[in-house]
Each structure stands twice: as C-alpha cells, then as structure tokens.
C-alpha cells in the first residue's frame, strides 16, 4: 500500500524541520536517515553525544577508524569543521540548550509532549543512553515513530503507558501517517499535516488522544 510515508519519506519529512545553521542531534534508526535529506546548500552540523561536533558521512571501507564512532557506535568520518570533546563537555552542550534540534525515535508520545523511548516493562532494558538528556536539554525535539504498534495499538496517546524519557518535551511528532505539534504547555495537540492518502478521519481512529485540525 502506498498510503502514508515509508521510513525514508518519514526521514525526508523530518528533514523539513531543519533550519540553516542548525546544530542537530540525530537518534538511532529513522532519525539517522535524516542526514541523507539535508537540502543542498543548507549548513547543518551534526552532534554526536559521545563527544563530536561535525559528523561526516560513513567511511569508505579503507577509511574505517575504530576511534571514530557515533552514538550508535557506527563508524563515521570527520569533516574540516569537526571537533572532539569529553562526555561531560558533550552533555554540557546538550543540557545547556546549545543544540537546536534533536530528532529521536519513540515508542509512545503523548498529546502534551511526554515521550517514552527507552524501556518496555517485562523486557530487559538496553539502557537510557543520552535520550533523557537530549529531550530535556535540546531546544526543539522531534519524535519519529510508526503511528500504531505491531498489534495495531495507538502510539500517539493521551497518556503514555511506558516508562517516560521526558515529560512535556516533544515539540513535533512525525509518524508514517502524519505530523502533529504537541501541546507542551497544555494547549492541546494539533494536526500539522496528513501523509499522502491519509484522511483526518483515519487519524482520529488511530490516535488515542484528541487533536485540533489546524492543518495549513
């Protein structure tokens, strides 16, 4: 079915949240694909929370350097503008509000911007990593996820059921079916955009929280 967005189209839609000059942190998964959609000529600098600013593309096979990885432990490259720093300096940068945008995967997001993306009760947790620091410290947080879970349950909800990563922190949610602006200050969630072929009625059905239809 061609209804909605595929993973790459979700990344492309997330890339439309980038502004020239932005310093950006991209999470693992679909967010990593956003790097492929940065418009030509736009200056976007990627931060990696393990201690790097100015991430380059993945290396050619003969360029792989074990001392040069991103937060997903993928081998990467540096750029002429790059800098390296310690973990405390990296998170001072994040916590201090110096990163303009974080694009992160999510398991659940609530209408008022709560996000859960680190732990599922009953499953062994992999850990928290930098997610809590990112959602609390970065100026603008974009969550990317499927609109519903594997068993069809809504992931955009009135109240998260999973352990939270942060409360009232998500600005924008991009799913395979549409784009929503969360109401972090209690102003209510707002539909920003429907994915191709997706109706508002369908979104109402698959979303477990009310939203305003302020589609532009």
């Amino acid at each position, binding site marked *: 079915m061609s209804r909605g967005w595929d993973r790459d189209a979700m990344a492309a839609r997330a890339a439309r949240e980038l502004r020239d000059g932005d310093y950006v942190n991209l999470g693992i998964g679909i967010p990593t694909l956003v790097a492929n959609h940065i418009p030509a000529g736009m200056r976007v600098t990627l931060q*990696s*929370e*393990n*201690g*790097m600013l100015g991430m380059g*593309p*993945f*290396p*050619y*096979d003969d*360029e*792989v*350097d*074990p*001392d*040069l*990885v*991103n937060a*997903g*432990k*993928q*081998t*990467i490259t*540096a750029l002429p503008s790059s800098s*390296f*720093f*310690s*973990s*405390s300096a*990296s*998170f*001072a940068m*994040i*916590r201090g509000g110096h990163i303009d945008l974080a694009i992160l995967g999510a398991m659940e997001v609530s209408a008022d911007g*709560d996000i859960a993306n680190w732990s599922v009760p009953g499953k*062994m*947790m*992999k*850990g*928290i*990593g*930098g*997610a*809590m*620091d990112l959602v*609390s*410290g970065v100026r603008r947080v974009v969550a990317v996820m499927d609109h519903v879970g594997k068993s069809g349950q809504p992931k955009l909800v009135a109240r998260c059921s999973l*352990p*939270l*990563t*942060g*409360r*009232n922190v998500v600005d924008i949610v991009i799913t395979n079916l549409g784009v929503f602006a969360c109401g972090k200050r209690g102003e209510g969630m707002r539909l920003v955009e429907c994915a191709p072929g997706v109706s508002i009625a369908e979104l109402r059905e698959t979303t477990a929280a009310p939203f305003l239809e302020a589609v532009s």
Partner: protein
Amino acid sequence: MKGKFCETPEEALDGLLVPGMTIMSGGFGLVGNPETLIDAIARDGVSRLTIISNNCGATGFGLWRLLANSQIERMISSYIGDNALFEQRVLDGALALELNPQGTLAERIRAGGAGIPAFYTRTGVGTVVAEGKPHEEIDGVTYVRERWLRADLAIIKACRADPEGNLVFRKTARNFNPDMATAARITVVEAEELVPAGALDPDHIHTPGIFVDRIVKATINERRVENRTTRAREAVA
C-alpha cells in the same frame, strides 16, 4: 623517562585492588576502553566490584570479561545494549544495576572530580530516574538534584602520555576518560604511546598530570569495532 611510568600492568595496579572497591572505567561502547588494565584486573580476580562505566563491554571484550568472571557486584551505567550475560546476571539477582542518563552520569563524575557534591538538572525530571531524589523549582522550572560520583580507582585509556602524566586522547576515544581521571583517589592510565617530557604541547593537554598517578604502555589494543558501517566508493567517471 621514569616519572609515573610503570613497566607492567601488574606494577601499575600493585596494591590497589581490594575486594568491594569501586572502579571507574573509561570508554564509550568499545571505543577508548582500558583493555590492558581490564585484562590485568581479570587476571587478579579481585571480586565484589562496583563498576562505574557507560557500558559493560561486549561478548569477550572489555568489562564483559569481569562480568563473566563474576567479579562485578554492581554496575553504574547508562546503556547496556544487547548483552545476554549482563541480562542473565541481573535476572539472577547476582548483579545490581543503577542506570543513569548518560549526561547525568558524565556530570556526576565531573562533579566528583570538581568537589561539587550535588547539582541540579532537568534531565530525568518526571521519569523513574528522578524518583526519591530532591526536586526544586528554580525560576519556574523543576529540577532534580543529583549527587557526585567518586571511585577508589579510575582506569583510563589514553592515546599519548608523558612521564608527568599529561594525557592526550584521540577522536571519540576521549569520551568518559578525562572526566573519570579526575574523580578517583588513584588514577591508572594505559597509553598507546609513552612520550618524553616536553613532547606534548602544553596548550593541548586534555588531562593535566596532577590527575594521573601511574601509567603503563597499552599492550592490548584490540579496538574492536562494534558497528562497522561504510559506504560504497563512487565509481570513477
């Protein structure tokens, strides 16, 4: 060249390993891990350790070996990842785990080294990591108070070290290493290269020698790659 240089990992750790002690171990994922010193600690067999480290190695590598050896009683980490042995030990009740947000972990360590017993952060507010901790509203925003972390011993992997203990790290192998070097009673370093006094530019030293007690040449430098990701080289037109 003597200074703080030791001949062997055993000499560098001599008298320092005590059951029940707390050890900070540098590294992020498999990058910047003190592999030589971890190996020596595995051979020593010292037990009931509390380990403060962002991760816990990977099968057969790094801190995983101390886990396999049943030397670790408690871990303070931010991310475990896919580590079947770790999971099993936690489920068995043989291993206590304290998960921290990565930035809170880094800042707690930095605070330990900087004489700051507690600080406030927004990270974790409203989540399980803030439960039971003091909260405070400052200028209309709610923050949680976090405590410093300190250790009996820090084991550190550097790129280059001079006899004074001045250290330089390489690329993302820096990570937690310089922070941890400040936060332990004793800091032992393994360096890929030992250089003479004056070889390091004093403007570009990442860890000043005051934080370093002993140094040994790193003899295990497997530097395993966890997630080799490459791109194809474009065909020449």
